[in-house]
Structure formats: structure tokens, C-alpha cells
């Protein structure tokens, strides 16, 4: 694909909800951003809408901005770079194909993009029988990340809250939620991994989600 860079829009400096900056703004040709734009200052919704209009520069901007974070999540879920890159590839192709279906009134464009990736990665896991993969110490690493508020300094205020709330959950409720989120495990697999009855795990996750909701509404 030849990107229409010179004719395209640069969505990197838009705030959420802002209309697209006019055409003619250039972006560096085929090189990832030298000083990466942070997701919270990028107008994902407008970029997705531009993709729906066939504007390839918006597609490339989304790729430059989000492929690294999408790849990191996919690698946690799928356990291998090859499979993770497959998932990211499919997610971006689906983004381009389905951009016309995105409706900003229903929610955040970045969340929509990551939901495509997550659907794709979970479908890959299901096709493989959802065998948990990856490092056994993944959860310890994640626990460290959650315990370090500084690590999330680039997030929006709204986005900060859930990770903070998750950190407040007691371990028996937090751990199964993290296993589901980062490893793609089902209720049954989590119960097996934690040597707990299935009903107990389902109850803990439900209770954990409920507490997260309460925390988010405070």
C-alpha cells in the first residue's frame, strides 16, 4: 500500500473529540514516531472515521501509535511473538474493513481498537484449546506493575482509576481477574490453576468486578 502521506491528515496531535486537522499536514514517511505520541492525546475516534473514508495516513498513524502496546498485550495473551503479530495484523486489517461500523457515541475509539485485538487473540486461544502459555512469573511481573503507580503515568485520569481499583482488591479476587485479562484463561482453567472450586472462582471474579464498579463510581 502506498500511503498518501502528503495528502493525508496527521491525527497525532489531536485531542479526543476534536475535529481532524486539515489535510496537507505531513507525517514522517514510514518511520515510527521519533517522539511517540501518547494515546491520551491522540484522537482515535477521528482517525478511525478517517480510515472509514479510506485515509491511509490515519491508518498508519494508528499503527505507529498503538502497534507496540497492542503487541505487548497480544504477547501476554498468546505467549509468542509470532502469534501476537498475527493477532495484531488481523486486528489492523479488521480495523480498516470495519472502520465504517465504529460509532463514537457508543464509546472510546481506542477501546474499540483494542477490543478488536482482544476478540482476535481470544479466538486464537480458543482455536488452540486455550492452553495457557508464557512465562510462569507473568503474574508476579504484573503484580509489580500494578503496585507501581508511576508506571501508568501516561494514562488518562479515567483510565487510571481501574488499575488503581484493581490494586486495591484483595489477592484472591485480583489474581483470577488478572489471569483472565492477561492470560485469556476461562473460569475452569483459573479454577484448576488456583486449585479452587469452580464456583468459588466464579464468585470471586463476580465479586471482584462488582467491587471494581463500585470503586470506579466513587
Amino acid at each position, binding site marked *: 500500500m502506498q500511503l498518501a502521506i502528503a495528502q493525508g491528515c496527521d491525527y497525532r496531535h489531536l485531542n479526543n473529540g476534536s475535529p481532524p486537522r486539515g489535510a496537507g499536514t505531513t507525517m514522517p514517511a514510514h518511520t515510527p514516531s521519533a517522539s511517540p505520541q501518547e494515546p491520551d492525546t491522540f484522537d482515535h475516534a477521528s482517525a478511525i472515521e478517517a480510515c472509514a473514508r479510506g485515509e491511509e495516513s490515519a491508518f498508519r498513524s494508528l499503527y505507529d501509535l498503538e502497534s507496540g502496546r497492542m503487541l505487548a498485550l497480544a504477547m501476554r495473551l498468546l505467549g509468542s511473538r509470532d502469534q501476537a503479530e498475527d493477532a495484531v495484523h488481523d486486528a489492523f486489517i479488521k480495523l480498516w474493513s470495519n472502520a*465504517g461500523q465504529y460509532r463514537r457515541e457508543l464509546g472510546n475509539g481506542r477501546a474499540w481498537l483494542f477490543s478488536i485485538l482482544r476478540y482476535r487473540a481470544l479466538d486464537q486461544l480458543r482455536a488452540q484449546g486455550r492452553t495457557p502459555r508464557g512465562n510462569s512469573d507473568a503474574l508476579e511481573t504484573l503484580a509489580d506493575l500494578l503496585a507501581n503507580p508511576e508506571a501508568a503515568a501516561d494514562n488518562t485520569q479515567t483510565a487510571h482509576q481501574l488499575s488503581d481499583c484493581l490494586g486495591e482488591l484483595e489477592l484472591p479476587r485480583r489474581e483470577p481477574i488478572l489471569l483472565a485479562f492477561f492470560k485469556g484463561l476461562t473460569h475452569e482453567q483459573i479454577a484448576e490453576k488456583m486449585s479452587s472450586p469452580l464456583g468459588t472462582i466464579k464468585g470471586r471474579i463476580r465479586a471482584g468486578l462488582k467491587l471494581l*464498579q463500585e470503586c470506579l463510581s466513587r
Partner: protein
Amino acid sequence: MNTSLIPDTPEEQNLLLGEHTLGLLDPEREEEIRAWIARDDEAARMALRWQQHWLSVSDRLPPEPASDSLWKRIDASLTRLKQAPASAPTSREETRQPSWLVRWLGGGIGLGLGAGLALALAMQVGPFAPQEGIDTGTPDMAVQAPDTIEQRMVAVLQTLEDPGTPTWVAHVTTAGGLQLTPKANIERPSDRVIELWTLTDPTEGPRSLGLVDPVAGIELSAAQIGSMNPGQLLEMTLEPEGGSPTGKPTGKVLAIGRLVDLNQLDS
């Protein structure tokens, strides 16, 4: 579609969608939730809100630099996509209530054989029916060791007009492919073809699996069909020569059915 499994209260709905965004639900439940999100704006809103909240967790991961080859692959796929026959960019109004969704949810999805009937029909007319001259050895897959159990998924496709009569039987082969066999004659105009579709992702809509020979059926490889899961819908429609011009079903629904996991029925 039976909506009785969707909770009544917004709070319970929200928790269910939280579980969905975590990927905790079983495949059949998962498909139901995805269809619900596709048709219900409030459900879509709640699910996206969860996704947005989860971003704060995944953003704690350090980004992984993507390889140069990843962009090249995406670039090449996009080029192919743009060269493919128009799958017509749809306007927002058109995608709000896509015709395929209305039809699948309103007519097709509610049509389903009971699991027992599906099993009975599959055993009678499906790929597991005893064949003359072949000693099947009465395989009892239910007692095999767990790691050797084969996935035995079948779908009995029925017409909307006569849901009691199986017209086609589809089964997922041990290699992960799909074999579709006619069990009744389907009449069609000479200038029309039969196209096979599946629905895995309501946000994407039905995906074409190709044209079907009404006499010989069709066999597809695992690479052609992608992942197949219990509860997944299969549908055949009547389309113009060469297949649907839009990339989505446009003609009459000839037959429709869901994949059933026979191993689950055995247990």
C-alpha cells in the same frame, strides 16, 4: 434469539459484560453476548466502557517494538483488500441495523435444533453414520483419554420454511476443515448460485466461505474456514452468478444451522 439468558438488571448486565471483556465465557455464551452487543447500543456502550477501563491495566505493559515485517504484512494485506471485489464501504446508517443482522437474529438465529435432535440427525445422516462395508469398531470417543479426544462438531442446516427437515449437514473434520454434504435437493434458478456463510464476529458480520455445489457439496480446509466453535452459525443463501456482489448475504436464506459439539452432548 432467546434473550432470557441476558440478565434483566443493568447492574447484572454490566457484570456479565465485564466477564465477556475478560474472555471468561464459554463459546456459546460468548457468541450470544457478541450478538447482543451488535444489536443493543446500551450493551455495546457498557462493553466499550469496560474495554476502556481495562486499557489502564494493559497500558502498564511496556510496549513491544513491532518488527518491520509486521507492517509489511499489513501493508500487503491492505493492498489485497483494496483490490478485492467491492465489499462496499457501508455508511453509518446502513451499518446501524444491517440487513444480515436483522435476518440472522430475527429469523435464522432463533431457528435451532435441540441438541438431542441434532445429535440424532447427525448420527443418522451425518458423517458419523455407520457406512456399509466399513468396520467402525464402534468408536467410543467419550471414553478416550482427554488429550486424544477429537473435536466432533456438526451442524444440521434447515430451511426456514420447513425447520424439521435437514437439508444439509456440515461437519468439522479431524483436520479442522469443514465438509458440507447435501441431504435434500435445493431448487434454485439457473442464474443463481448458493453461497455459504459463517458468523463468528457480529461486528464483522457474516463471512463468506465460498460457493457451494448443490450436488457435490463443498469441502474446505482449516486455513480457508478459520476457527470453528460450538454455537457458530452457518448459513446458505441464494446469490447472483459469481457470488454476493457486496461481500454480505443479499439473497434468500436457503438453510441455516448452528455447530453442535457432539462431545459435549455425549457427556
